[in-house]
């Protein structure tokens, strides 16, 4: 995996009693990427992130963040990693400016210019109490606090959960802009897949604690396609005769299939079924996610 990985886990496992929340997760997040860590509610995304930041003890395995051990170097990691979590607790009795001043004391790399510029861009009122801010403004403030010390890695754990569509879009655009400016690595967890698609260039999908997919988004979208086959007389065991079928849609003469690897070999196998028509269609990340998670569930 080498030095280009900012997050590297090997068989990372977390068990709560008899329940396994994260099961032997081996993951690599390349430097400079915007990595979307996707999964359903309870899939193990937040548990993984909490282990990476040593907010939670791991049961087994190893995790390295920015080349440092997540347990031994937890303090150094926290100084170099920005984190925005769902419903992050902020000292709500402070004003925005007070909170910025307070947090500044803990980060040697704090940049007042960045903080001031972001405060302006995100339109945060300096004198307003945190408790008086809307949820969207609080999320923006959390982002500001995470970015003001120029972290090498930004971890966002469901940062837009609970926000309305307009604010979510606003927030994500803010994130995109900042990322484009700085070229940092972003590790982005969400279950709102359609929103992540606009931002991410790498995708990891976790389901019930297991990593079921980890590759660049473009590669994923190039490989996972919908094949639509039209037959006069459809064969009986279609699914078994085509390799890497994730899901089947429709029935009768017109059959849709989502395949995991839309290679020449797969297309050749589809043509061998003698359909009257064969169409290859692109899928959204959400469709791919549903197909992959559905397949994992079947398995």
């Amino acid at each position, binding site marked *: 995996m080498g030095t280009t990985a900012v997050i590297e886990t090997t068989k990372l496992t977390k068990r709560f009693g008899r329940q396994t929340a994260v099961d032997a997760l081996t993951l690599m997040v390349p430097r400079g990427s915007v990595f979307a860590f996707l999964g359903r509610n309870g899939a193990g995304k937040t548990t993984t992130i909490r282990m990476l*930041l040593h*907010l939670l*003890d791991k049961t087994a395995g190893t995790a390295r963040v920015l080349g440092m051990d997540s347990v031994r170097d937890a*303090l*150094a990691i*926290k*100084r170099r990693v920005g*984190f925005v*979590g769902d419903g*992050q*607790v*902020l*000292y709500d*009795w*402070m004003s925005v400016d*007070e909170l910025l*001043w*307070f*947090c500044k*004391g*803990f*980060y*040697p790399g704090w940049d007042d210019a960045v903080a001031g510029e972001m405060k302006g861009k995100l339109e945060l009122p300096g004198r307003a109490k945190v408790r008086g801010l809307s949820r969207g403004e609080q999320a923006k403030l959390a982002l500001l606090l995470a970015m003001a010390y120029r972290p090498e890695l930004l971890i966002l754990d469901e940062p837009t959960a609970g926000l309305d569509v307009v604010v979510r879009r606003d927030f994500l655009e803010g994130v995109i802009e900042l990322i484009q400016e700085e070229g940092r690595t972003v590790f982005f967890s969400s279950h709102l897949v359609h929103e992540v698609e606009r931002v991410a260039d790498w995708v990891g999908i976790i389901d019930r604690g297991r990593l079921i997919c980890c590759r660049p988004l473009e590669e994923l979208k190039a490989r996972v396609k919908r094949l639509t086959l039209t037959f006069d007389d459809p064969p009986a065991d279609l699914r078994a005769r085509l390799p890497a079928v994730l899901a089947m849609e429709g029935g009768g003469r017109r059959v849709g299939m989502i395949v995991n690897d839309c290679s020449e070999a797969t297309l050749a196998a589809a043509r061998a079924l003698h359909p009257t028509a064969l169409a290859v269609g692109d899928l959204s990340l959400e469709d791919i996610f549903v197909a992959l998670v559905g397949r994992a569930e079947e398995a």
Partner: protein
Amino acid sequence: MDGRRVWGRLLWKEFRESGVVLAAGGLCALLPVIYRAHAWLLYTGIALASLLITLWATYRAQRGSDRSRTLLPIAPATGWLALYLLPLPVPLFAGACVGAAIYAFDATQGALGAVLTSAALFMLALFALCTTLTLVYSAIPAIMLGTLFLYAHFDPLIMVGAERRFLWISGAALAGSLLWAPFLRRRRLVSGRLAVGVLLLGAVFGQALVEHLRSISPDAQLPTYHPYFCSGSSDGAVSVGFVRSRGGALAYRDIRTKFQRVHDFADGVLPLALFRETRVVVAEHEPATRRITLSIWDVRAATVREVGRLPAAYATINVIEYASVRPDGRYLLLSTRAKVGRGHDLWIADLERRAVTLVMPNIRSVSLDHPCTTWQTGWTDDERVRLSGVELMLAVDLRTMRARRETLPPPPEVMP
């Protein structure tokens, strides 16, 4: 990173947040000083200040383990220290205010410094206990045990003079929070909670538990015997003391003859002096009338006879600071805290005529120690009694019941 900057920020946050508690705690405690008309105000002030510390410590500890703190790049040890160290001025200030109120209210004896220290340590113990309980368990048990702790030490007389106990409880609470960390890391939560629970319960209720166990044992009476004073024989063989497991019970014991007798008085009894080997002068306090009655307990005859009553009303019997009885049992010299002023009132009780006379009010003396500890009485054949201390010499004429200060003769001149 500059550690001072981190501590500075944490300190700023602490005092921005707890400033109101600081002010409210002090005000609650000092309420009785501002308006001294009713004794219940003293208790209300103490209760409110203590309750405030209980709730605030619980709230802080809950917030102390929140994600906002753990996300900051602070070492766990720094976080732990911040949880205990930074807010300490708040309970100590509230305690000092409570101590000042107790002292100003004349509710107990003792020097100002001792009273302030006791009350401040009481608040410290309360704070440490509630913080640790919240960390290990949750807010509800912390509030429950904090309230029980408050109830157990609610009386200023109990609070003052229990410094060592409060220090022990504070230490046990801190040890409990340290003990908790390894259990937490290994996820042995049940055994960890059990260990910390036993430690804290032992610290808070250990003494009471031991006494209770002693009281239910068959030979409980004398092992719990607590000698209050020894007198009546040159070898100190005769002693009178409280039976701790029985409120108000006094025990007389002569170790030469192995004679022993226990008598049940009402709560608020104080043995004052012993004469003729088997007669004990006791003082009893009636809360309803706030009067102090003097009685003679004849141990052999097992009778108690009232022999006088102090004309002034007192909130507690602990105002009595010094007593001495004439060997024939006719007169009793008694010193109480002054009703007016900071000194001592001196009384002579004629135990035959049942008359108690204030012979000198508000005797002042300057001493680092409690002045009464240095006092000595000399009963003379010419119906006088002399009271002398480090810087005090008084003579009371028992016929006229008049006291006058006596001056020391000038020091002998020393040749150069």
